[in-house]
């Protein structure tokens, strides 16, 4: 599976069970980057895709295990130990990096270094409500 995460400048993911921030331009970009792919996530993440008719999104609490090879799993609220548990099944990692620091009580501690990820592409783009978002693509 292709794993997608949204992280701030301190690797923050969420605060008080809520996403730190959102930008519809990220979803547009994801759908353009992975056309025709099946997207997976939890019920909360599904709401990000609700206004995009072309998106095929499957919500499941166990989405990290159910996503097949080639599927895109959007892990907004997944604790890092869950990511480590499926590490071997991750074919590609895409991080959308907010150019700010937001409050965080859920922080990504999944180690890109230990997992052997290598930053192969990095592109900045302007979002709908964020001046700068960076798309980081990692391969092993």
């Amino acid at each position, binding site marked *: 599976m292709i794993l997608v995460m949204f*992280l701030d*400048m*301190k*690797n923050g993911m969420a*605060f*008080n069970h*809520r996403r*730190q*921030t*959102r*930008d*519809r331009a990220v979803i547009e970009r994801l759908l353009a980057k992975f056309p025709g792919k099946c997207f997976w996530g939890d019920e909360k993440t599904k709401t990000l895709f609700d206004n995009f008719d072309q998106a095929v999104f499957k919500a499941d609490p166990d989405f990290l295990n159910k996503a097949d090879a080639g599927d895109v799993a959007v892990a907004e609220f997944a604790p890092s130990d869950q990511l480590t548990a499926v590490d071997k099944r991750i074919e590609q990692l895409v*991080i959308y*990096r907010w*150019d*700010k*620091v*937001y*409050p*965080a*009580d859920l*922080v990504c501690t999944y*180690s*890109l*270094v*230990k997992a*052997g*990820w*290598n*930053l*192969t592409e*990095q592109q900045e783009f302007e979002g*709908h*409500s*964020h001046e700068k978002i960076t798309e*980081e693509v*990692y391969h092993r």
Partner: protein
Amino acid sequence: MKQQKLKRWRRLLAGVILGAVLALTGCSTSSVKSVKSKIKNPVTKKTTTVQASTASDLSQIPAYSGSAYVALNDNKPNFTDSDLTTKSYEHYSDLDSLGRCGVAMACVGKDTMPKSGEQRGSISSVTPTGWHNARYDFVDGKMVYNRCHLIAHQLTDENANEKNLITGTRSLNIDGMLPFENMVADYVKETGNHVIYRVTPIFQGSELVARGVQMEGESVEDKGEGVLFNVYCYNVEPGVTIDYATGYTQADGTKGSTGSSNSTSSGSSTSTASSSTNTSSQDDTVQTYVLNTNNHKFHKPDCTAVSHMADKNKQTVNAKRSDLISQGYTACGICKP
């Protein structure tokens, strides 16, 4: 011009309404409700049940232990149903007899925020209580004190409003308050919804410098689904001891001893305030590094050592410097990342 008049009118009306509400609820700087609350360390996720925050109740707030903020009351703010309006307004309390700020509250909407590209005006004409210019080399930005907006410029377009500026440390400003300001501002920009937002400076007795601020926020249209928080941010600076009664500071020796005299001048050129920029320390913000997986050194991408590195040993990541060090990597002596 029309917009400014409208804004003034809104403020006046909101002031009257909020004044009445505050009078009825007894809410003021010194009377944040005392309730059983859970205080949660946001990074380590340790949870402790304690009494919550009032000015006389600071003993119930855990001592600062490295996290810039702690959650109060399981992050549930103390707003009443009538607070949760979708009509934008701002209210700033009058200064008290010591010249200190009180509660600042707003319904933040796109219409209260500065226009795109609008820069913040000068705020150096305001000298909040306890203000001193104190410089330490180990403090990010050098100056230990910032003129801290209670409600950030990015939320309500306020500049040199003495009812909205307190003496706050760099850490309070950047690590404590700014992340919440960013979250609210970007939520409002993305959704067009409103956020009820309240910042209460917590002074102990007659001290001139606040011990911290309580920040509360709740998104209105989606009933807190997007934004919901109630936190206490510490007005502290690692490595610096603050005399909260006067505002005088001195290095405590844990970070270094380089400091300057504490002067009370307005410090127009060096003071900064809450802003939307990100200037957290290099150690714990993500940057691009190139690792040598063979000798466990990490480098800046443009380091000369990178061009001599064998591809099989090269790994590029966006990571926090502190995380690399904790994973056994050491900084290159040439590029000093």
